[in-house]
């Protein structure tokens, strides 16, 4: 399920990483989700670095699987609020650092290394976390 970026996307990723990595900018955390592309869902596997369990959107940080010669890319997957995700069956401990996961996501339209979670699966247990109410 490890999908490979096409060269265009890879180039965009580099540009995005260079151009945006240090952008602190004005407070815009409470963003919309329109920057994610509903029509082209993707999936990747990787290893959880961290869960940021905070409002208004949680983030699941995942090192995407890479070849031994490559440095794994760190992807940022965002989802709903802790309250809404709790009602969808998540806890702050659903994903632990080091867990291997498969994330199904809506990608950024600009090709950046982030996405909106559709579903995330802990591969060791097969437990699936979605975003709808349980």
């Amino acid at each position, binding site marked *: 399920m490890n999908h490979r970026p096409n060269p265009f996307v890879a180039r965009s990723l580099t540009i*995005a*990483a260079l151009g*945006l*990595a*240090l*952008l*602190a*900018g004005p*407070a*815009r*955390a*409470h*963003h*919309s*989700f*329109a*920057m994610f*592309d509903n029509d082209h869902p993707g999936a990747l596997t990787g290893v959880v670095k*961290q869960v*940021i369990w*905070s*409002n*208004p*959107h949680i*983030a699941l*940080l995942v*090192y995407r699987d890479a070849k031994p010669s490559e*440095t*794994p890319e*760190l992807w*940022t997957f*965002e989802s*709903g*609020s*802790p*309250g*809404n995700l*709790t*009602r969808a069956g998540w806890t702050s401990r659903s994903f632990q650092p080091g867990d291997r996961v498969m994330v199904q996501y809506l990608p*950024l*339209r600009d090709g*950046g290394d*982030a996405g909106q979670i559709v579903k995330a699966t802990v591969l060791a247990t097969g437990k699936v976390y979605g975003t709808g*109410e349980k």
Partner: protein
Amino acid sequence: MTPVMGALLRLWAAAALAVPMMAAAQDAPPVINPPPTAKDWAAIGKLPDWSGVWIPDTPDPREMARRTKANPAPWTEKAAARIAKQNEDRKAGRPDNIFANCLPEGMPTWMMISNNAMEIAMVPGRIYFLGESDGNRLRRIYTDGRPHPAEPDPTFHGDSIGHWEGDTLVVDTIGILPQVWLATGEASGVPNDGDMHVVERIRLTGPDALTDTLTITAPHVLTRPWTTTRLFNRSRRRDYDIVEGVCLQENFTAETDETGDAVFKPQAMRDDGIRKPVDKPTGGEAR
């Protein structure tokens, strides 16, 4: 002290005393909220039971579009043009979340568009709506018979006065800040520009269903009063209880400072508001 000096001093002392007394006599005495009695608390038990956690009905985009088409807001020409532009931007993936600054949605927009749950609590003389997103997503509806203040200081949620008509709470809200967005989505709305008046009829429409029917008069952005509804569904599950929701928390990252204290530091962000965590892998070079 001469008799004249003594008389002058007495006159001065009397004047000094009289001035504050006169000023006090001109002010109306403060209105005191009467302490609730056991009977007042018992009366709460006879009202419709709205206690618990209410989850707003949040239709998917297709259903949302259908509803908007069925009951469009009667926007003025200027407001309609701005909303048309916002809709184009959203479709093109250039979202402008009008609530990105984390200020409250305010009234009536909170009731209309929030995706976040709320809890309702009734006490004698007032009803609280406690929103999950931020401690300041809070409405106080006074039901003790008081009128609106003659000149309310505008606030995000305005001044709300409620009264019961049978099982329906009728809430009248004025005093809303002109900057508060009248919005039908997080990226679709305009500032109300002032003089907004909202009348809500809120009632249980099922054992665990609460319907808020809002009639909004916003003379600077709507051509006529507009009536719309929002449904909230109750859950009694304990794991659905409200949790804290601080909107600005995402702008910060939990770190440890040089003294070893746990601190929040600004979180690096992409310009669209997605976190851009600084990658510091252990045992390797930072990218």
